């Protein structure tokens, strides 16, 4: 059914900038401090206080814009976005309405099949975060009272708005990964979703495949992790399709994503949409940015994931997808390059395989961040050399690798301590081969009847007896020899 429908997705991503201080005052911008300790008259919106733009926040926003291939507005301004909420001290957020700092950018994403898609960035603007509410109860409706922590109020945020260029939950996930990676490389945020430093709203609609008009969209709020974005899109897409296939009409509305239940619920309909009454912020003069300012920020930009990815593909022959994964974190790329330097360029593909299939898997399982890579490039290369020398088998290597992760010891030490050296002694292996052939007459009969896989089964038995340490080619040769001997005996 769903092939008849195309999903159209646009994202609004909020990223907290990791400046030293808040955006309108000089309070510390830090996560996890005692509630209401990083506050002052300005971020509490005490009567008479006035905002002053943090130059570092401005620079970071421009840096993020350049990293996302945006144009920079030469004449920008701030606007007040008016609404009442207990976590918003001034009763308005200082944001940007019609002249955002950055516009017309893009992000290229690489899908598993190696194809790339360009997602356009419509705009990026700078604004302040609100405080945090703590409800004394299970949720806001059940609470007797709520407490407010204003430490986060005034933390600089950039809001990144995409064009409706995303077509699937997978693409949305890849976009967010890539965005996160670029932002992190550019050094303007640590983009930790679990600390709320990256948050996402999803605009989604569906339309008949091939149509060029947009369907009616819903906006999903409260989508707070990458996996939640994927789940929310899948859910909402199906909800829209179900309505349309029943001949109904999707209503334009804002919905809240409830991740635990896996559903979206109505927050407000279009008629109840808030009127934010934007108007130019009279407390802040317009921001005028010169070409020289922009070039200064651009010159200080580090190498970004796309450049690293291209280097990995061109210099080391990695596939686009593999290169995109290794380039996604600066630490991954550095680790890879060090390993290749130690092992030689010929090993690049092997190293990439180990890094993506084993190292990343283990790190995901253990919840380790890229700055906590548990194995050094030297250790991996040392292990690869043991394989090359025939000291260990490829199969044993996986065990050795896991032990390296757990103990931090080198492969050589582990192999010695655990006795994992490959058994390449023909006499020893032949004896074992003869024993297993003799002990399994039924399988021997299968082999005689021409079943080729029977020989492989005997190799497996040898591996079992040697705990995987047998040289697989040698084992096959000796199994064949033992089988032929047995056949000759009969």
């Amino acid at each position, binding site marked *: 059914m769903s092939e008849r429908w195309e999903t159209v997705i646009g994202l609004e991503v909020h990223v907290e900038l990791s400046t030293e201080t808040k955006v309108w005052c000089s309070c510390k911008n830090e996560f996890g401090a005692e509630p209401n300790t990083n506050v002052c*008259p300005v971020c*509490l*919106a*005490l*009567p*008479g*206080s*006035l*905002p*002053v*733009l943090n130059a570092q926040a401005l620079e970071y926003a421009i840096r993020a814009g350049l990293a996302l291939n945006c144009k920079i507005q030469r004449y920008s301004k701030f606007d*007040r976005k*008016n609404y*009442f*909420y*207990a976590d918003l*001290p*001034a*009763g*308005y957020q200082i944001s940007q309405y019609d002249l955002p700092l950055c516009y017309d950018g893009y992000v290229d994403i690489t899908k598993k099949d190696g194809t790339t898609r360009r997602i356009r960035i419509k705009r990026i603007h700078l604004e302040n975060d609100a405080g945090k509410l703590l409800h004394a109860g299970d949720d806001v409706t059940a609470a007797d009272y709520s407490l*407010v922590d204003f430490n986060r109020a005034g933390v600089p945020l950039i809001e990144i708005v995409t064009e409706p260029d995303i077509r699937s939950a997978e693409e949305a996930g890849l976009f967010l990964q890539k965005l996160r990676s670029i932002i992190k490389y550019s050094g303007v945020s640590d983009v930790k979703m679990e600390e709320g430093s990256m948050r996402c709203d999803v605009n989604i609609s569906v339309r008949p495949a091939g149509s060029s008009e947009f369907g009616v969209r819903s906006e999903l709020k409260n989508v707070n992790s990458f996996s939640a974005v994927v789940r929310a899109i899948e859910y909402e897409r199906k909800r829209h399709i179900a309505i349309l296939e029943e001949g109904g009409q999707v209503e334009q509305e804002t919905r809240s994503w409830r991740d635990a239940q896996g559903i979206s619920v109505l927050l407000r309909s279009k008629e109840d949409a808030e*009127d934010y*009454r*934007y*108007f130019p912020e*009279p*407390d*802040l*003069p317009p921001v005028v940015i010169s070409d020289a300012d922009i070039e200064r920020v651009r010159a200080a930009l580090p190498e970004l994931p796309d450049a690293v990815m291209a280097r990995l593909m061109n210099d080391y022959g990695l596939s686009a997808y593999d290169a995109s994964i290794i380039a996604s974190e600066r630490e991954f790329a550095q680790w890879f390059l060090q390993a290749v330097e130690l092992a030689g360029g010929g090993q690049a593909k092997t190293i990439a395989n180990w890094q993506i299939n084993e190292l990343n898997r283990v790190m995901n399982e253990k919840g380790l961040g890229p700055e906590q890579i548990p194995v050094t490039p030297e250790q991996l290369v040392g292990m690869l050399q043991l394989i090359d020398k025939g000291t260990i088998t490829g199969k044993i290597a996986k065990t050795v690798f896991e032990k390296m992760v757990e103990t931090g010891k080198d492969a050589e030490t582990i192999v010695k301590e655990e006795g994992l050296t490959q058994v390449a002694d023909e006499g020893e292996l032949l004896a074992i081969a003869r024993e297993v052939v003799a002990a399994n007459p039924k399988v021997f009969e299968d082999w005689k009847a021409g079943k080729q896989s029977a020989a492989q089964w005997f190799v497996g038995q040898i591996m079992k007896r040697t705990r995987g340490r047998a040289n697989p080619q040698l084992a096959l040769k000796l199994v064949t020899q033992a089988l032929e001997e047995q056949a000759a005996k009969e």
Partner: protein
Amino acid sequence: MAGIIHKLSAARLNRLFLGGELSAVEITESVLSRIAEVEPAVGAFLTVTAEHALDRARKLDARRKAGDTEFGPLAGVPIALKDNICTCGIETNCASRMLKGWVPPYDATVVERLRASGAIIIGKTNMDEFAMGSSGETSAFHVTRNPWDLDRIPGGSSSGSAAAVAAEEVPVALGTDTGGSIRQPAALTGVVGMKPTYGYVSRYGVVAFASSLDQVGPIGHDVEDVARVFQVIAGPDRRDSTNAGRTPPEVKFGGEPSLKGVRLGIPREYFGSGIEDGVKARIEEAIRQLEDLGAAVEECSLPTTEYALSAYYIIAPAEASANLARFDGVRYGHRTAQANGLHDMYSKTRAEGFGPEVKRRIMIGTYALSSGYYDAYYKKAQQVRTLVLQEFQRAFERFDALVTPTTPVTAWRLGEKLDDPLSMYLADICTIPVNLAGLPAVSVPCGFADGLPVGLQLIGKHFADTQLLQIAWAYQKVTKHHEARPNLAPKGGRQA
């Protein structure tokens, strides 16, 4: 001297203090006793900080006795502050129930500057609630009476600051001026009031009414005192991004007053239908005196003036509607006793905390900014504002300053216009265009009409504040209208 200390100018008091002829404590006690004497009749203050002031005075005296000579130009000078200027440790409530009992944890920049210059803060003055009003009557607490006629309003919104100076309770005071709130009450109470160029004086710590229009300024008996306070409060402040970062040039008064070479424009739109005959006569007289001083006087036209009031009553309420959103009962100020949930708390808190004029302006501003109305109101008003500014700029190619009445009328009776907001708004018709253009202007006394003071307004170019004060000084020097003082009976009762 003790009996007349409260009549002395800031300049004189500073000189006497520095010379050791008067102690700061003597000055402060004299002023406090004058306040005790006339306050029951005038009602200029919301808070009198007697202990704080005496403590400051004692410290100043101790410093001086210890041989300290590093005193600022306001050392030993008592000053009153409009109650929308934040004072650390002293209640600041903007004459609103919403902020009753709120004690700021910080000083406004102008207060820091005053303290550093040795001024003694005597108290916080009454005002129209959140500076919204032209008569002082929208104060949530009490009215302030005009010292020249206690049945009349002193003007507003800096009602208490102007009345306190006029009643000789303090030599100088600070007000704030968003649409005339310093100049209009100064005119109606016969004192000098100055609105500096927008951006000359920091707004940090001044409770915002309309951020793009608000400016703090001095009120005093004469131009020298006003200039002295202006020099102290003006200057760079990084905490206010709309501050121009400029320090005014030093201004010196003296010699023979002369306006030779000074070109003055008389915009005819300021003498329109609403002007009282008595006011018109005084202003025309003043213009002749300015000519006598050597000024080249010429009539001119500022035709967009008639749209300025409408534009102002869109822009100022629009900004106010956002500026006053912070009064929500969450962090400070009034919070309703009984509320069922957050939104109920907001609406009850604000319904109880704000008076009718403040509510009226919040509603006007919210409406003007609403989706679908923004272009028709706010945007159009901003366009008018630009035209007003351009028109002034063109006029200043020909003139050094413009001369107008400060208000078209003299002080009216208490309660007379309270139920007629439009007529109340019209009282600011001569002062509002100046705020829209961000220009400096000063109101100086120019005599009386039917026993009530009339003010002459001089409007100058951006950052030509001191030049403007020089013109005002020359006028004052030859007319001496500023020397007239109201006769407040020592018994302090209301006049019959």
